[in-house]
């Protein structure tokens, strides 16, 4: 059996509040292999965002195991988590999350800065990925000078700059119109099929989920469906 990219066993997550602990994720078990394209759906409050944060090493589970490339994330310190986020994972957010004062190539080169890559190589790689996203002529522009769809492509270029094996996209098309959403999803599909990058995507739009090849549905902190994307619509209607 090939080593999975992600192996999750008996994962629990609860938040401590003034009113006592609030369970958010309940006994999650999930494996994701390299090269998969997974869509995660579920109503708000179902725990899918918390799950994504744990997948992205931005948060750690209360109990249970999360192995990323065989490494138990729960045992790692802040620096090791930062380095996993830097080297293994690329993030794409709903709100793009670009640095507003930095130009596009600086934004894209940022993960490489924290990976201690030299200046000239950093900028060269940043320009390469911007070009790949069709934004080669905007290298010196500021995020505010380009459209939302373009900003999301910059965010994808930034996610790619660290040469990740996993891209986590949290509602990446949530702020975009249908046509632009389709373009962005085509990019994800291409990265998945041509570059073999594993993609995990949270969405509440069935149309977007259909780009994936596997659907995981969360309800009340549990996985209620794991398999075909064909039922995406039924779930949305339920």
């Amino acid at each position, binding site marked *: 059996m090939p080593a999975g990219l992600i192996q999750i066993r008996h994962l629990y997550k609860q938040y401590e509040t003034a009113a006592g602990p609030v369970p958010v994720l309940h006994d999650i078990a999930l494996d994701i292999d390299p090269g998969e394209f997974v869509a995660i759906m579920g109503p708000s409050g179902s725990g899918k965002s918390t799950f994504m*944060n744990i997948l*992205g090493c*931005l*948060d750690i589970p209360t109990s249970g195991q999360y192995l990323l490339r065989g490494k138990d994330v729960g045992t790692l310190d*802040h*620096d090791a988590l*930062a*380095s996993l*986020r*830097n*080297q293994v994972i690329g*993030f794409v*957010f709903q709100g793009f*999350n*670009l*640095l507003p*004062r*930095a130009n596009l190539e600086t934004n894209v080169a*940022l*993960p490489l*800065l*924290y*990976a*201690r890559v030299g*200046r000239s190589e950093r900028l060269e790689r940043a320009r390469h990925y911007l070009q790949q996203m069709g934004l080669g002529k905007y290298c010196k522009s500021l995020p505010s000078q380009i459209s939302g769809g373009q900003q999301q492509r910059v965010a994808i270029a*930034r996610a790619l700059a*660290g040469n990740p094996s996993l891209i986590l996209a949290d509602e990446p098309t949530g702020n975009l119109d249908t046509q632009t959403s389709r373009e962005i999803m085509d990019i994800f599909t291409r990265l998945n099929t041509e570059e073999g990058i594993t993609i995990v995507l949270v969405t509440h739009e069935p149309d977007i989920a259909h780009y994936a090849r596997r659907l995981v549905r969360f309800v009340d902190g549990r996985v209620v469906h794991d398999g075909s994307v064909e039922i995406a619509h039924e779930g949305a209607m339920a």
Partner: protein
Amino acid sequence: MIGVMLGEAWHAMGANRMRTFLTMLGMMIGVGAVIAMLAIGQGVKDSVNDSIASMGSNLFIVVSGSTTSGGMRMGGGAAPTITVGDAQAIAELPSVRASAPVIGGTAQIVHGSSNWSTSVSGVTPDYLEVAAWQISRGAWIADSDLRAATRVAVIGKTVADNLFGDEDPIGQTIRIKQSPFVVIGLLEAKGQALDGRDQDDIILVPLRTAQRQLFAQQFQNAVRNIMVQAVSASAMPQAEKEMNELLRQRHRLREGADDDFTVRNMTAMAKMAAQTAQLMSMLLGAIASISLIVGGVGIMNIMLVSVTERTREIGIRMAIGARRRDILAQFLLEAVSISVAGCIIGVLLGIGAALLVGQLMQTQVVITLSSILLGFAVATAVGVFFGFYPAHQASKLRPIEALRYQ
């Protein structure tokens, strides 16, 4: 990495110029005040030290004391009670190296069409060394001049400048109270005394010449004062005691009677003046450095605001791999940049202020490299010290919470 972070710090500072400027203002004023105060303090200290060096070492001045005449007490020096004889007797004391009696007053000096009013002193050859004078050109008063009461004069630089201009004064004849004197020597310039008097505005003539031809005395052999040099600094208390005893005995003062003379320890007075100057300089610096602390608090305040405003940015940076120390370094560098930038402007302001004060108050100001380096060191330290807490707060943010921050 440092280069990029400096660039980012520069960008962040430029993003809100007014705020950055106001934050820097605290440092500018603080560093400027420290530099200016140190420069002024150093100037005072230097001029005091120059005066002390020009005064002669291990020095006493004996002057006539107060006397009572017809029930009326006269001020010190009003009645001439000390004499050339006293001076000669003091010179014999074991703890005294030399003593020099001085008589004199003010006189109008004429040379050709120029005239000048100055202080004329009758002195003995020992005076040169006791009063720490140097002859810059020509000769000093010789023993033979003293004995023969010749009409020769040694003049100070101010007198030479006023009477002769660019001319060479040596060998020229001047008239002091109508009597002709030949200028035989020129004194090396000393500059200002501790009390601000111009020490170079002086003419020295042989003691006996002054007694006989310039300042005819009511009392024979009375002198204005006696300058006394002790053999060493450690012998000064002993010398003072011996002089007091000797003079009381010579003046036949009964047990319990007041001294009719005063012995002033000039060296102790000078030391005190130097200490006062030093203390004042330190005090000014200390007061000025309080504004540096206030400036530092301003930096801390604005950095805390900045961290809060940029919480989301910190979250983004952490999400894509910034470690805690990367965030810490970034904000710390920003605080230090503001501080050092303020310091650079502050140094220039401080130098300007010091020069201006020097001009307006006609005092010496000395801007030392060490005070500028001190300014930079303190500014950096203030930046690190007051920048650390906000930077630490930033680095401790949890990435998910920072990312969620609106």
